[in-house]
């Protein structure tokens, strides 16, 4: 008995090929083993996989050492008929119509060829290249980061720019809109359109999302925390950075800081380098994004101009300065003269002191007497009924604070007031027998009137309670009716008395002239020359008495032997340098750069007669608002 076996495959040119052969035998062993009639040389086939036998019913296949599938279903044996399909391992065997005389024809196809050997598989995997492509990763990294870090953050600006360039784009963008309407003032171009309806731009949902994402990503551009005062602008970069690729302009600062003054009026920047200084932007000194305080530049920047200040301001009168320790001139003291109250003399300290380093205030005052360590006569002594003599052993020791108290937050000293500081000792009583009554300080024009009225009352018998009229005045019996002649005689006596007392006050008893220059102008007219003293000796320095209260006053103000109010007891720079050094730190000393004592904005208001007033006004304003960046 013979079986036709057709080996189905492809030839070397890739075309289908059917090789036929006949196998003789009554039993057909199918398997991997050499002795099989139908050998299937593949490791996936068992040595004796199946057995085909022939009987009256036809060919019969039975499973041997391996599993069988007949027409897709597992089977252990089956009768084969034309069209049946047998699966043995990777082989597919189709039962075909056998030529005449043959009982069986089998077409054998290797369905899934054996994997190529390991080396070839590795090599083909190698030739496919690595799974991780450096090139692809590089593109992803480059484009991804550019998109996230650059393109999205500036997208809203680009969008606005594109719209300005072509208003037609607006219509396209607003095609699919939601009602997140933003009203935008119409541009000049569209304003010219005839009877344009009220213009409302609508923002599409996509654009709103883009703007949100851009806002968030833009925060990643922030190089550092904003200063405290500017933190309200945190998410609004455009508040300061108004134009892309243009440095922050002063206009942006002046939107809020309208009243901040220039260092020097621009008209004064007449030196060859003045122009450059006039162009200095706010932001060149005030650097933001550097922490909670606006950063300020070093005193090097002050020294840039002040090492040769005339280069910048040709008319400048200030001396050149580099550093407090190594290059600061002696102090200039602002002095006022009572004779020319609107004029400030600025006199620089020197050794020996210049002759005009005096204050012509017209006030007489002797610090030495008042600061006598043994004390001054006590006011209670003066109230002694015995008169204006010492009460035995009663003396009061005065110190600086008795008259000088800090004002303006400790920056300056409050003015000394007659009523508050002097009058408890220096009584303005005019009538020894009426100690409770005093003339009003500072009202010299009214004093004569007041005295004449006072004595007139007494001579006319209208004696106030508690007042004992002096003995040299005539007395009127209570209830007596005065004739007009009596009245005019009595008033003449009162006037004479007033004139006498006036003379005593201003001249003989030296009540006024103890401190003031007095002069007689007429019968009842005496005048006290007006007094003018400096309110601030060094208006350009931000000195604080409060910050120096650990030091005795005398360390800076040596008045213990001053007998004249002309003396100017301001410390010299050497005194300050006992504690303060310049910007270069020194152990045990206070490091002090320009800004320790000096302000910048409005440091010079203007030149002219009222310079002193302007100085102190500006200085006070500046001190109150304290715009200093670093406390």
């Amino acid at each position, binding site marked *: 008995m013979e079986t036709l076996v057709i080996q189905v495959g492809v030839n070397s040119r890739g075309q289908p090929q059917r090789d036929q052969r006949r196998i003789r035998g009554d039993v057909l062993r199918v398997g991997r083993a050499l002795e099989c009639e139908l050998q299937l040389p593949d490791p996936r086939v068992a040595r004796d996989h199946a057995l085909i036998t022939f009987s009256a019913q036809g060919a019969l296949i039975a499973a041997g050492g391996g599993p069988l599938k007949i027409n897709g279903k597992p089977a252990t044996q089956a009768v084969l008929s034309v069209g049946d399909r047998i699966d043995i391992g990777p082989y597919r065997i189709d039962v075909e119509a056998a030529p005449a005389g043959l009982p069986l024809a089998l077409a054998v196809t290797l369905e899934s060829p054996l994997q190529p050997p390991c*080396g070839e598989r590795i090599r083909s995997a190698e030739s496919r290249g690595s799974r991780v492509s450096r090139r692809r990763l590089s593109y992803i990294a480059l484009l991804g*980061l550019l998109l996230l870090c650059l393109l999205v953050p500036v997208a809203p600006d680009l969008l606005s720019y594109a719209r300005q360039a072509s208003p037609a784009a607006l219509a396209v963008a607003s095609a699919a809109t939601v009602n997140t309407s933003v009203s935008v003032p119409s541009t000049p171009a569209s304003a010219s359109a005839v009877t344009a309806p009220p213009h409302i731009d609508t923002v599409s949902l996509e654009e709103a999302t883009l703007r949100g994402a851009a806002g968030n990503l833009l925060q990643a551009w922030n*190089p550092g925390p904003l200063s405290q005062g500017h933190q309200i602008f945190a998410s609004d970069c455009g508040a300061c950075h108004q134009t892309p690729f243009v440095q922050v302009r002063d206009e942006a600062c002046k939107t809020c800081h309208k009243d901040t003054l220039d260092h020097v009026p621009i008209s004064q920047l007449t030196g060859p380098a003045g122009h450059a200084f006039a162009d200095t932007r706010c932001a060149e000194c005030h650097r933001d994004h*550097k922490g909670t305080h606006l950063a300020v530049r070093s005193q090097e920047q002050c020294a840039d101009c002040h090492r040769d200040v005339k280069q910048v301001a040709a008319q400048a009168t200030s001396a050149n300065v580099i550093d407090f320790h190594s290059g600061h001139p002696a102090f200039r003291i602002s002095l006022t003269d009572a004779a020319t109250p609107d004029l400030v003399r600025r006199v620089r300290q020197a050794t020996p002191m210049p002759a005009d380093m005096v204050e012509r205030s017209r006030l007489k005052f002797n610090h030495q007497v008042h600061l006598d360590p043994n004390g001054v006569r006590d006011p209670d002594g003066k109230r002694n009924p015995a008169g204006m003599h010492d009460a035995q052993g009663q003396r009061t020791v005065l110190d600086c604070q008795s008259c000088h108290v800090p004002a303006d937050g400790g920056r300056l000293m409050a003015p000394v007031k007659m009523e508050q500081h002097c009058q408890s000792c220096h009584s303005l009583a005019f009538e020894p027998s009426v100690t409770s009554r005093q003339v009003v300080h500072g009202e010299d024009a009214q004093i004569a009137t007041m005295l004449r009225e006072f004595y007139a009352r007494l001579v006319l018998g209208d004696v106030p309670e508690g007042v004992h009229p002096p003995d040299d005045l005539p007395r009127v019996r209570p209830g007596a009716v005065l004739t007009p002649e009596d009245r005019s005689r009595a008033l003449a006596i009162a006037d004479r008395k007033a004139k006498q007392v006036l003379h005593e006050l201003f001249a003989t008893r030296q009540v006024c002239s103890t401190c003031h220059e007095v002069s007689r102008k007429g019968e009842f007219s005496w005048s006290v020359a007006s007094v003018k003293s400096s309110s601030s000796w060094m208006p350009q320095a931000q000195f604080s008495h409060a910050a120096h209260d650990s030091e005795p006053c005398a360390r800076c103000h040596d008045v213990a032997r001053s007998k004249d109010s002309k003396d100017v007891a301001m410390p010299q720079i050497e005194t300050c340098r006992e504690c303060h050094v310049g*910007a270069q730190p020194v152990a045990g000393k206070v490091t002090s750069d320009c800004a320790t004592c000096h302000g910048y904005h409005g440091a010079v208001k203007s030149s002219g007669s009222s310079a002193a007033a302007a100085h102190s006004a500006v200085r006070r304003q500046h001190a109150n608002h304290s715009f200093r960046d670093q406390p």
Partner: protein
Amino acid sequence: MPQHQSILEFKRGRYFKLALLLCAASVAAYVWHEPSTSQLKPYGGTWLGYTLGTMAAVLILWLMLLGVRKRSYSSTLGSVQGWTSAHVFLGASLIVIATLHCAFEFGWNIHTLAYALMVLVVGSGMFGVFSYLLYPARITNNLAGETLDGLLLKMSELDRKCRRIALELPDEFNALVMKASADAVRHADSGKSLRPWWLGGRGRNRLGEARDALLAMGSSLSGAQVRVNEQLVSEMTRLVSVTERVRLEFRLQALLKGWLVLHVPMSFALLAALTAHVISVFYLW
């Protein structure tokens, strides 16, 4: 010129000296530029900051051009060896220059992102230099005059031989040889993993286990099959040793080149971050 001159010793360390000079000059300028009297800390926006930043940016662009130069074989613009030597030393000096440029100021922003990417790129580059010092000798040793293609051909030859021999042996031997072929591929491939051994980077050598199993199963055989199995085990042992060499080759190549997977894409990320950094700084000047 000796044939195997290290890029580190190119022209007696010409670029090392140049990089050192660059770093020293930068540090000196930094110290001199902002005296202690200043209340404003140094930062990238001073004239020195801009200078250092420009230097660093130009350096980065030039360093990235190495990728172009090494591919232009016809170029005569200096030798690739010189370029690489300069790439290594000037790249390392970037750490100093960029750190002085940012004046030790860091934050959660794109500026520090650019800095961090630069550190990553330079760091991976330094690892690359270390790799090029260490692994080429080991690769030469492992290949021992052969090539990877040669070894792979050998593997295929041995695999075929094993399969052919196994056909004569019982089915379980066949199955084992079939599996061993896949194991050989997997074992060789495991060399490409850069996972360290303590994270399972080494893996099991299943190929070796298959060989041992064949040896053990041989005791059940008799007659002519015993000799056939002996032959199979001997071929399998050769396959094991060749596969091990292929695996080691893969591993050394991965170690030698693996850092580039970080170095190259990160340098492009750096290019993007640097562009964003520069533009953003001047966009919001």
